[in-house]
């Protein structure tokens, strides 16, 4: 009978990936919504993770004709203990004779009726980028790993022939030959000495026999020594190289946001996405990134991320207060020679009108000379004096970008220059 064993283990897994894609495509509405919520709740630094997606089971069920409850049916069960014919049993909850409990729909959490699955990091980012309408080139740039460089890392006993280290290998071979042959060589020397001691040319039968025996033994030892391989596969040593990320300098990112009363949740959400995108860009280029959150209304304050996005104040707006604080922090903690400084500012454009000119001055005189890049988004349509002042800046400063943003998809163009220049450099 023909019979064969086939090893399929290397024949590729993830045959179902096409099916998974179709599944995600079918439920893209719900998945997108879940990603949006997740972005909302996550810290900027935690953005690159997978996410559990919950779908109500009834939404993904595939219908088919089946019997409902009612009518008459007879079911055979095993394991009868106490019943005899004619016994009456209380109808179990749920109405069906089987007594299998029907699950209750859960509206939150991992209810029994939720179908839960894990969106991988890649899929999550894909959908996040889709939302931001990132061009494909930029996506690959953001999705790729930081640049790697290979370094020497000693020797290993496996590798490609081109990495063979001849000296190391030969040194090992000598050692092995010496070690393996040492016993035999010592024996050989002893035997040869004995042979020397025997009188040469003697015809005494006992001596001839002894000589014969010695010679045989010596020949065997020599043969054994000759069999020790000159070079054995275990001697081979290869130069080992490991790939390490290229160390790059440190960066600090300043997030400046207006938290006055006019900044509602939707506007904050837009601002958050704007900060996330810059952060993602920076993580590709710098190993260590500090985040500084400055929120302001009439006064500026350095806060942690949680308070940055959650808190809400009322009152007027003095934008320059944030810029002043940023300047102070740079002087104190982030000297421009050691750190690459990036600034990202979000506001609804509302400002005390005498303050806007001062903002422009602060930027041109102290901040922009020290920053690698400074981006400003206005999350409202209306152009006020802050916008006008900044617009003057944009004309003269190459590393200053600004944009009005009312939808997530409009954020990316703010950074277009940033990504573009990077591409040229890379």
């Amino acid at each position, binding site marked *: *009978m*023909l*019979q*064969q*064993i*086939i*090893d*399929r*283990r290397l*024949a590729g*897994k*993830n*045959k*179902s990936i*096409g*099916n*998974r*894609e*179709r*599944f*995600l*495509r*079918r439920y893209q509405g719900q998945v997108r919504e879940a990603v949006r919520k997740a972005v909302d709740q996550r810290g900027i630094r935690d953005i690159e993770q997978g996410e559990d997606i919950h779908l109500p089971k009834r939404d*993904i069920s*595939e*219908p*088919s*004709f*089946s*019997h*409902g*409850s*009612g*009518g*008459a*049916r*007879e*079911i*055979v*069960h*095993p*394991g*009868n*203990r106490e*019943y*005899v*014919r*004619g*016994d*009456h*049993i*209380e*109808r179990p909850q749920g109405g*069906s*004779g089987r007594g*299998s409990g029907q699950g209750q729909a859960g509206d939150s959490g991992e209810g029994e009726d939720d*179908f*839960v*699955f*894990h969106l991988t990091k890649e899929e999550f980012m894909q959908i996040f980028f889709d939302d931001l309408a990132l061009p494909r080139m930029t996506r690959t740039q953001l999705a790729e790993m930081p640049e790697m460089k290979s370094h020497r890392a000693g020797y290993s006993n496996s590798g490609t022939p081109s990495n063979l280290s001849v000296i190391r290998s030969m040194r090992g071979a000598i050692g092995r030959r010496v070690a393996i042959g040492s016993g035999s060589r010592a024996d050989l020397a002893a035997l040869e000495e004995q042979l020397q001691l025997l009188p040469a040319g003697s015809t005494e039968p006992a001596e001839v026999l002894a000589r014969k025996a010695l010679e045989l033994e010596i020949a065997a030892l020599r043969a054994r020594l000759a069999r020790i391989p000159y070079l054995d596969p275990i001697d081979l040593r290869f130069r080992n190289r490991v790939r390490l990320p290229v160390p790059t300098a440190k960066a600090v990112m300043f997030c400046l946001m207006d938290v006055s009363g006019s900044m509602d949740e939707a506007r904050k959400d837009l601002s958050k996405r704007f900060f996330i995108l810059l952060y993602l860009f920076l993580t590709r280029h710098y190993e260590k990134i500090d985040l500084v959150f400055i929120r302001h209304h009439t006064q500026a304050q350095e806060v942690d991320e949680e308070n940055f996005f959650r808190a809400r104040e009322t009152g007027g707006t003095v934008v320059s207060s944030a810029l002043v604080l940023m300047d102070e922090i740079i002087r104190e903690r982030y000297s421009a020679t050691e750190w690459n400084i990036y600034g990202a500012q979000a506001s609804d454009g509302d400002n005390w009108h005498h303050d806007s000119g001062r903002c422009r001055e602060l930027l041109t005189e102290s901040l922009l000379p020290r920053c690698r890049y400074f981006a400003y988004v206005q999350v409202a349509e209306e152009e006020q004096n802050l916008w006008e002042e900044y617009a003057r800046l944009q004309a003269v400063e190459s590393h200053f970008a600004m944009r009005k943003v009312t939808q997530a998809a409009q954020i990316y163009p703010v950074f277009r220059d940033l990504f573009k220049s990077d591409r040229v450099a890379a």
Partner: protein
Amino acid sequence: MSGRKSESRSPSGPRRLRPERTLPLAPLPAPARAEKALPDPSDWTFDLIEEYHEKIRAVAQRFALDTYANQLEVITAEQMMDAYASVGMPVNYRHWSYGKEFIANERSYRRGQMGLAYEIVINSDPCISYLMEENTTAMQALVIAHAAYGHNSFFKGNYLFRLWTDASSIIDYLVYARNYIAECEDKHGMTAVEDILDSSHALQNYGVDRYHRPSKLSLAEELARRTERQEYAQTQVNDIWRTLPRRPDRPGEAADLKRFPSEPQENILYFIEKNAPLLEPWQREVVRIVRKIAQYFYPQRQTQVMNEGWATFWHHQLLNTLYDEGHLTDGVMIEWLKSHTNVVFQPPVGHPAYSGLNPYALGFAMYTDVRRICENPTDEDREWFPQIAGTPWLPALHHAMRNFKDESFIGQYLSPKVIRDLRLFAIVDDEHDEHLRVSAIHDTAGYRHVREALSRQYDLGSREPDIQVWSVNLRGDRSLTLRHTRHNNRPLHDGAQEVLKHVARLWGFGVNLESVDSFGDVTTHWSITASELAQI
């Protein structure tokens, strides 16, 4: 059933059934006891699998297990989950529901909630059995005995499989199906294909021929015939819908109105494929693919207990024989026996793990008991099974495997002893009674009743609602009417409306579904009108 156009059925006259093979009379004699047992390291090697396989093959041959050639494939856990997702087949077309299945399996596997099956076996020629990489040597031996000899011989021997499936062409057909669906996705867009697949899947249990034997086609023939078939089908459809000019001398049109279909049709998908007015040729082909694959799985759904029981009986028998003849070590025995015990465990009703009868436990118990009845019959057995009590066991067992399906197998072979051992009892659940009633237990008065009730329970005809194509309104709005005939007055599940949407999508016009009780009165009515259809 009306006479269908036998478009794909062979025109060569009466169908040929493979000649019935003679039943083996007794196992061949055992060779001398082995000097040394097979090595049993927990890590398997290819050589070791081959050695075990060779021993198992030799014993299987002595017991006259006739199988397709075996192809053992070693796969990883992830590949096993891939196979799970596409209904156990090595290739299948792409569909989101398989993705859903995969995601669900992967999640529960990663969390350790679910162990993977040790094996998957495919009814094909050669018969493909998957061995999981993670299995130990002993488990591989168990899987080989179970799948490659147990299931394999069942696929080759059982009449349903012989009649309804063609093991040699299924893989080819699936490759064809996969490529065709992919082609359609390219041409007509993913959504359009997905819609048709969704709708066809909703009806796949109603895409089965119960009485006609499907044709056997090779891949090449299938491809060659596709174009021909599509053209032909389209002309047929047009023919049905052609509006004939009225003859002036016959005003009584109503009297002439022919009923269509002339008899109710149980294969709804087939009816749609042939008669739905608006389907494009490629859509008909997609419906056909779903129907064909459903047909291939139809015997498996009807022989769960028999198939699993047979495979379990034989791995038990083969491995025990090998042990008796000195081939297996104690360690291997303990290991596979532990796994065997888990497989045939039947939790009693009320147990937290209880979810109905375990087909492995029931089937194993029944085959084992058939053997016992042959070898050591009691007076009771002589009374119940006069035809097999005291006869050679091997032919009796092979006969029981070849010529039955679950329903008839239980009806024929469920013995009082098995009923007692499993302590089976029947409960009647009637909506008119306030309480459930125990109708029979494992006593003299109850054996026959339990056996009949259990046999009915495995009858696909009563498990699935009986729904057939009833009529098409040819002269009016072209709506299709399906009819559900109630069995024991059991109503349809509320999900019927959802399924009806799918029927309407395929049909292209309004669809009605009537539920008819035992007096022939329509009790419930669902419908999708043409205007609702536009919103689907």
